[in-house]
């Protein structure tokens, strides 16, 4: 435990001292948000339910992108530790071997939370308002944290097995683009049939729908259970492969 926190402190120092990573994890999704709200927002609005504010409509998708960008840097930090022999150094010391892995997971979640807060701030500036209760906010925070944990375990796998820095980061692209093919930015009703089928059944849609319903103070229905099932399911599979890759490389 104590060692995990010592190593977590080390990674936080990394994040603070290389602000370019956290900046790019923040700026890119925020730029996409501004693009959707101000460029496409007017056109998309026509197919939204009446009275729906587009800033609010697309925010869950942006939050997911923020997490995806952040975890791609977690994969990168992992790759660097492996590449430079830093894992070998820690693993030949009398400390619990999983503590260095957990330190990476904690650092990734912390940086996600930080950038999520900033993103909410920008959304407030451009007109996001929510009447959600504390309980609903708490549920939003819990889902985002769980999703961040899920993606971090996924990002650890390429971080451990990739042969090059590009490989370690490449995984992030599908995850970053996945929200675009969901109900995150436009209602799925307007999509061609095949895409619609995909969009309605991929994990991002229930996660987005749940967060959106919570922020809108609407009933969340079954979506939350599907969202949780996806997160927990992916996390268990990713955790299994991450642990296997971790054990194999040492």
């Amino acid at each position, binding site marked *: 435990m104590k*060692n995990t926190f*010592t*190593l977590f402190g*080390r990674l936080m*120092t*990394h994040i603070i*001292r*290389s602000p370019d990573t956290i900046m790019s994890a923040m700026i890119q999704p925020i730029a996409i948000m501004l693009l959707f709200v101000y460029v496409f927002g007017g056109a998309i609005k026509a197919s939204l339910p009446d009275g729906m504010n587009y800033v609010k409509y697309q925010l869950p998708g942006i939050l997911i992108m923020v997490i995806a960008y952040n975890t791609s840097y977690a994969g990168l930090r992992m790759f660097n530790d492996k590449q*430079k*022999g*830093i894992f*070998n*150094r*820690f*693993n*030949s*010391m*009398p*400390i619990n071997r999983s503590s260095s892995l957990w330190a990476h997971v904690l650092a990734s979640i912390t940086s996600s939370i930080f950038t999520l807060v900033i993103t909410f701030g920008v959304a407030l500036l451009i007109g996001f308002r929510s009447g959600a209760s504390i309980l609903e906010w708490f549920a939003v925070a819990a889902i985002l944290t769980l999703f961040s944990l899920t993606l971090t375990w996924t990002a650890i796998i390429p971080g451990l097995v990739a042969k090059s820095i590009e490989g370690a980061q490449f995984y992030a692209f599908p995850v970053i683009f996945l929200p675009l093919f969901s109900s995150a930015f436009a209602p799925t009703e307007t999509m061609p049939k095949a895409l619609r089928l995909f969009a309605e059944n991929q994990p991002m849609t229930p996660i987005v729908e749940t967060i959106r319903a919570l922020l809108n103070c609407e009933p969340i229905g079954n979506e939350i259970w599907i969202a949780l099932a996806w997160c927990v399911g992916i996390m268990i599979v990713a955790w299994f492969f991450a642990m296997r890759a971790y054990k194999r490389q*040492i």
Partner: protein
Amino acid sequence: MRDIVIQVNDLRKSFKSNDVLKGIDFEIGRGEIFALLGSNGAGKTTIVNILSTLMKPDGGSANICGYDIIHQPEKVRQSISLTGQFAAVDSILTGRENIMLIAKLRGVKNYAAVADNLLERFGLSEAANKRAAVYSGGMTRRLDIAMSLVGNPAVIFLDEPTTGLDPEARIEVWKTVKELSGNGSTILLTTQYLEEAEQLADKIAILHGGKIIVHGTLDELKKLFPSAKEEYIIKQPTLEEIFLAIIGTKKEESQ
């Protein structure tokens, strides 16, 4: 009686169909510097990885400070420290923070004092608060070795400590390693250079084709070498000698 710290019996390891280690035996006494000499790919790093519990052997056994590397790896890790083939320093942290990090992980109480002490000893006091990213190759290696000394481990593994360093930095590291031996630590060193083994080690083992083909003190090994012949040849200076000569004159001029 000689106090045996590392005992290796019939160690075997293969990667897929490639038999890297085909039964390795050796023992190292307390306070000795033991050099494993071998060319690239001879299996030196594999031996170090197995002894430092990063890898499991396919066969054979090894003890470090009386602990079995397979069944008591936690105990072994308390007795050793590894300086890997690539200097494993955190380039974003400062030299001081790097040492303090290891000290905290090893549960050393007065870690700040330990860090200052080691930085002083390795001539890194001035650069202590600079990020390791700006260190030269020799300084990075010295920091790397300093990190390995935190908590005074009984056994130190140095895997090719001078590979990739320029001649000046190599001599710097040699000096450091020689000083370590004065502390009573047992050192297992791997190298590709006979000269390095000659300079540093009490005992030398030559690893070739997955086996240790010769093993002994330098004098014992020298008896096995072809006997010295007297020949007259004009000795061309090596690039290294030229380099050191020029650097030397430059230093004198600047003083």
